[in-house]
């Protein structure tokens, strides 16, 4: 799990050679906590196929604005520097896993 910031986002996400899943959150957001655990599981189970990172929107206003993050948790899926899907709110592991499989 990579800690993403306004500074490393371009290199770690937009220029990544593999698909990237980014979890946008804040420390105080209660619905973000179960989502973070599920994303962590995805990171472990798909570590050789997908890059996974988390982004605190209170610490990275530029990227959060650029990708129009409004409500969190929001997940963005990137491939070749482009957003290919986005979700908001908590989703169960199997639902997220289905999406991941679709994008591999």
């Amino acid at each position, binding site marked *: 799990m990579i800690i993403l910031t306004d500074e490393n986002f371009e290199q770690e996400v937009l220029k990544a050679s593999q698909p990237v899943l980014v979890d946008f959150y*804040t*420390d*105080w*957001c*209660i*619905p973000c906590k179960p989502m973070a655990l599920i994303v962590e599981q995805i990171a472990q189970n798909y570590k050789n196929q997908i890059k996974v990172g988390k982004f605190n929107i209170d610490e990275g206003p530029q990227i959060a604005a650029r990708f129009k*993050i*409004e409500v*969190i948790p929001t997940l963005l899926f990137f491939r070749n520097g482009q957003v290919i899907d986005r979700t908001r*709110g908590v989703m169960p592991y199997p639902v997220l896993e289905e999406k991941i499989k679709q994008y591999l």
Partner: protein
Amino acid sequence: MEEDVVEKIIENYKKYAEKNGFKLNPNKQVVESLIKGLLTREKKYGARYCPCRRVTGNKEKDKLNICPCPEHKKEIKETGKCYCGLFIRP
């Protein structure tokens, strides 16, 4: 000191919830975490903005995200709780 502020906000939210026909989440850990988030954001951005939404810097737009936000009553009615989980249906 901050604990006193948190307790006072909890009391005020309890009264607000009762007055409006719903209640504060009985999970105190959840409520305290959300309120600490609101206070942190108040220090950082100047108002108690919902910790589950982005502060955009546009005061008019962000005003809609000050807790309790305009959607909370609709969300409680439809899903049993507001998005953040601060208020729930009795």
